[in-house]
């Protein structure tokens, strides 16, 4: 029980972090990602870190992975051939969706893809009503004909989604039995098993997406499992899910849709960890990469979660960390619109060709180029190309494309660019705080990703925050989150009684708990190790949006359920400015979560064995250029204090301390900047 490894696969690089509990040391390596066979990069990364640290494979006790395979399947619409079986007259529910256009003032916009073509969507007679009572009998013969026709069409799997199956799954199960009889090899998924909640489109699309991602991810995970066993690692692979916990590969396959935010979720977990080690209550994680920035929130020490999200205009109805993404990153392209306004993104130069200063053929000014113009990043930091000419070209392009049209000096224009980028991030942060009734000023900002620590101080000041946190190795921070994640499984069911009824709720919670215990058992955990929590989704009768409220107590009784309803009124008041305590409250869904904690990393001391100050250079701030010391991150010692203006450099990341800020290096090696 000594060594933990986390592997975070991104679009460009695969980051690997190894923690040795015996020495308290953390080791890092990066290797190129290997699309489309991402497993090769993962295994190469594991080989590389094991070799680098001379680790005995059998001592690895924990192996956790953040993957983009699921994300890509959804984002790129890489959907296998699926069949869909629905009620009579309803095969188009999946394609009609919610009948809206994704954009209002755009005649050329398109709807999200239908996922299953119309010819592979079939109907069977048989129907239940909203009370779960039968109104049309199930037609076995017709069902068999339909299943046979889909089997002949050679689909990879069949999804079955019938009305009110969350209340009564009899017809769905009978279709499943017919599939097993017609073709025992053929995969299938029942909406009542995957996502037993109300609203037929959401349930259908969630089940279809889950099945699609499952088919894409299961071979990938199989190959990884085999590769890991081949290397003599005697440890089960776990996978980060969108909810910020990890689960085994069996569950990652079965509930594949839960891997779509695997990577960003790891960043949120790492953010919470910093929050705990630095004894902060409320922080916002700002993960700024090349094309976009992911924002997550930790409130009262807990990651803020939601029960649903959206990718590519498709609803993702599974519990997930509430991650908001905005199209502003280091590679975001800067441009002037027709009204003479300065704009940043959403187009990005990406990693290739990248910003002009990367010297890989990029010609359009980006946020990174603006930072270069201001002297905030080191032109020699980019290892390819001819730096001095590339830096000059970036300046020239910036002047002609941006500064001149704005009638501003080169530096003023670059400052304007950063302000616009920061405003976009601020708006996103306001969304996750203000819209939830929180004052952003009461949060600290944890900045990571390649570009986050450059912008964070300005964003934090705009939000009137007191401080920002620059964690250790911000460039591979998400991979660190993989080492820290608890094993966490969620179950949910539509409530069988809309009125709060302790008897019914208790029996539903008991059945969910039994399922949870079974799942943990599969992963080798005993019931006693599992911490189970309950929550309800409630709304005023007549509303359509519910809020998740934790059960006010450990067991379900009349009293605790009543107290939970009281809590709902409070939450409503806090969020929307009023509550209606005399109005009836409706229970929509019941949720339970099982957690097995992962031990924290033991703090390691930071020994500075190199000179902290590397050099100095002229850096532009509001008002002009100032001579600014450049520090090496590896040279900073615990307790050291820095005064802004200053810059801290380390491999893969540059941090900026503007004038008027003070930075302190904490015992855990994080840098806390007081704004």
């Amino acid at each position, binding site marked *: 029980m000594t060594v933990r490894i986390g592997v975070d696969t991104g679009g460009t690089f695969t980051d690997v972090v190894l923690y040795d509990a015996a020495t308290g040391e953390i080791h890092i390596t990066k290797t190129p990602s290997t699309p489309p066979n991402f497993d090769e990069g993962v295994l190469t990364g594991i080989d590389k870190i094991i070799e680098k640290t001379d680790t005995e494979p059998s001592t690895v006790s924990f192996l956790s992975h953040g993957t983009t395979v699921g994300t890509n399947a959804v984002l790129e619409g890489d959907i296998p051939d699926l069949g869909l079986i629905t009620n009579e*007259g*309803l*095969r*188009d*529910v999946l*394609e*009609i969706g*919610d*009948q*809206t*256009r994704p*954009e*209002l*003032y*755009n*005649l*050329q916009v*398109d*709807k999200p893809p239908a996922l299953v*073509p*119309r*010819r592979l969507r079939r109907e069977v007679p048989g*129907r239940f009503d*909203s009370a779960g009572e039968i109104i049309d009998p199930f037609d076995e013969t017709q069902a068999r004909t339909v299943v046979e026709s889909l089997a002949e069409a050679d689909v990879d799997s069949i999804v079955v989604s019938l*009305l*009110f199956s969350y209340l009564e799954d009899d017809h769905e199960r009978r279709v499943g039995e017919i599939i097993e009889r017609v073709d025992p090899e053929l995969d299938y998924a029942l909406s009542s098993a995957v996502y037993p909640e*109300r*609203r*037929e*489109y*959401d349930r259908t699309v969630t089940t279809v997406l889950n099945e699609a991602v499952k088919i894409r991810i299961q071979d990938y995970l199989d190959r990884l499992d085999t590769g890991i066993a081949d290397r003599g690692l005697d440890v089960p692979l776990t996978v980060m899910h969108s909810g910020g916990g990890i689960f085994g590969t069996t569950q990652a396959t079965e509930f594949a849709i839960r891997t779509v935010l695997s990577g960003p979720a790891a960043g949120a977990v790492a953010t919470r960890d910093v929050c705990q080690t630095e004894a902060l209550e409320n922080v916002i994680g700002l993960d700024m990469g090349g094309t976009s920035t992911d924002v997550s929130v930790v409130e009262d020490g807990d990651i803020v979660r939601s029960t649903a999200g959206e990718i590519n205009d498709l609803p993702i109805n599974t519990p997930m960390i509430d991650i908001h993404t905005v199209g502003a990153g280091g590679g975001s392209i800067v441009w002037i619109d*027709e*009204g*003479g*306004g*300065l704009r940043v993104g959403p187009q990005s130069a990406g990693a290739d060709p990248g910003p002009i200063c990367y010297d890989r053929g990029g010609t359009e000014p980006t946020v990174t180029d603006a930072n270069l113009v201001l002297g905030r990043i080191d032109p020699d930091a980019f290892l390819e190309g001819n730096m001095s000419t590339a830096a000059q070209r970036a300046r020239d392009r910036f002047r002609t494309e941006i500064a001149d049209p704005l009638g501003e000096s080169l530096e003023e224009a670059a*400052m304007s*660019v*950063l*302000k*616009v980028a920061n*405003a*976009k991030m*601020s*708006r996103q942060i*306001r*969304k996750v705080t*203000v*819209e939830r009734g929180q004052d952003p000023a009461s949060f600290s900002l944890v900045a990571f990703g390649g570009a986050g620590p450059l912008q964070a101080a300005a964003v934090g000041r*705009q939000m009137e925050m007191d401080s920002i946190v620059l964690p250790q190795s911000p460039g591979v921070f998400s991979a660190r989150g993989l080492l820290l994640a608890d094993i966490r499984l969620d179950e949910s069911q539509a409530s069988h009684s809309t009125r709060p009824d302790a008897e019914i709720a208790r029996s539903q919670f008991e059945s969910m708990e039994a399922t949870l215990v079974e799942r943990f058992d599969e992963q080798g955990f005993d019931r006693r190790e599992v911490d189970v929590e309950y929550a309800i989704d409630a709304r005023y009768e*007549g*509303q*359509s*949006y519910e809020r998740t409220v934790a059960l006010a107590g450990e067991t379900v009784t009349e009293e605790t359920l009543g107290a939970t309803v009281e809590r709902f009124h409070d939450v*409503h008041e806090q*969020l*929307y*400015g*009023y509550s*209606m305590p005399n109005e009836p409250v409706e229970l929509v869904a019941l949720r339970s979560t099982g957690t097995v904690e992962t031990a924290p990393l033991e703090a390691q001391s930071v020994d500075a064995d190199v000179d902290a100050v590397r050099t100095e250079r002229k850096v532009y701030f509001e008002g002009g250029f100032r001579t600014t010391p450049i520090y090496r991150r590896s040279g900073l010692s615990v307790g050291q204090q820095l005064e802004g203006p200053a810059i801290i450099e380390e491999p893969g990341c540059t941090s900026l301390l503007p004038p008027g800020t003070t930075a302190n290096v904490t015992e855990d090696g994080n840098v806390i900047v007081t704004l």
Partner: protein
Amino acid sequence: MVDTGELEIFRHSLKSIVEEMGVTLQRTAYSTNIKIRRDHTCALFDADLRHIAQHDIAPQHIGSLVSVIPKNVPDWEDDLEPGDGILINDPDKGAVHLPDVMLISPLFHDDEIVGYAANSAHHVDIGGGTPGGIPNDSTELYAEGLIIPGVRAVRDWSYDEQILSLILRNVRRPDMRRGDYQAQLGTNRIGEQRFTALYESYGAEQLTTYLDELLDYTERRVRAAIADLPDGQYTAEDYMDGDGIVDEPVRLRMAITVDGDEITVDFTGTAAENTGPLNCTPAMIFAGTMSVIMAFIGTDLPKNDGFYRPFEVITPEGTMVNPSDNAPVAGGWEIPMRAGDLVTKALADAVPEETIGATKGMVCNVAYGGTDPRNESEYVYYETVAGGYGGRATKDGMDAVQTHFQNTANSPIEELESELPVYVRRYELIPDSAGAGRQRGGLGVRRDLEFSDHSASFSLLTDRTRSAPWGVFGGKSARPSRFRRNPDTDAEVELESKSTTQLDPDDVVSIQTPGGGGYGDPLERDPDAVLEDVRNEKVSPEAAREAYGVELTDETNVDGDATAARRSELRDTAAADGGELE
């Protein structure tokens, strides 16, 4: 001069406020129209009654707030106090149809009004003779429901129970409506808190400077975009079905004049005011027209007072787009919806690559009500149904979407059937409903409702059973709308587009919306795209042959030779008919 970066921050700050107001309204409302279908909007105005920010969600409401506030607030502002709220839905005062109720709240700082927060939301019921607020036979406004002329219904952020009780006594399901009015109040409260904070952080003087610059900046961008359109006068016209009382088509005519960086839209030549409820207020036609013009001049422009400055909309008095006081307007939204299609038709000559074929072009107001046999309680419901989008220069029109100013979501069947005694028997695309084209239009939608075990009142207040959505540049027309009682049975009966029917228990009503018109000559359509549509049962093999000239050897293959021959034959026939493929 305001720094452009600072201005962008300011713009986002304003936008955050209206977005947060919108989320509050949607999440807390009770009417399906508001909570699920998102038929609402929120806006901010400054102390000079300039529109400064808009929640981009339901463009039909743009016109109402922009029209009502400058027109009426000067009459009230001297008497307003902090925490007041004004309710209004009166078309004669610039509002739209009666179910769209607005709440306007003054925002104070140090005893002085510094702005207004406002929202408009479509209530499921506003009283009157027909459940759902859409009578098809009204000949004056009084029959359409409760008229609220602008009353101070809120004091100190609470409803005056006397006034609220008067309103609620006049509408169906008052318990549910109370929740809607409460949600509208909570929404403005959130707007007040956020705007006041913004005001304090900027200060009065700086705020004005920024606002002036934001509106000017918006105007500059809009003018630049208009200047890119070729100058000229572009006209289009179409006919609406009858008005519900008089069964005769009525003309809607539009002339768009692009002159440098300004646009005039003139409705002269439009039919006179109708006897029945097919009339719309200038605010409605403004919203319907502008929301489509916006798509032609830039998708991401801020929506505020500066946007509207380069536009003039002429609505001659006494026509159906500017009727006399107390004229019936319940079905009025059908007119601005069609005006949206006319904008795309008129601008086809100006920007052929950007325009689209006609869309479903009808709002499809459907309302029903009765007594739920499951619990003997009264119910009322309103919804609209999607249809086809027009074909485009490089891609097909979308199947089954809302079009133009309308982007309201559907009601999930499981929500609907839980709430009401209906079964949705069909909810599907209609094969062959789209107009053929090099890029075809989108398919219309069929929604069949069974009213189980009770006698319901079923109302339609919609259009387009006669004028088929047209194609452009050689594209063909789509199938118009159809409404049927007990479809595909011996008892099948056609329903008028504006009608109220007392159904028998277990009757089924079928709503079938139009497809969209095609773009370009269907004989130029890629035969493989036709094959794909045939395989997906969106186009029948017969239509593939007749409209597209595509012959198939079997279910998965195009017969290339036969297709070439068939297409040549169709071209010859068309040439013999006068050279035009229409």
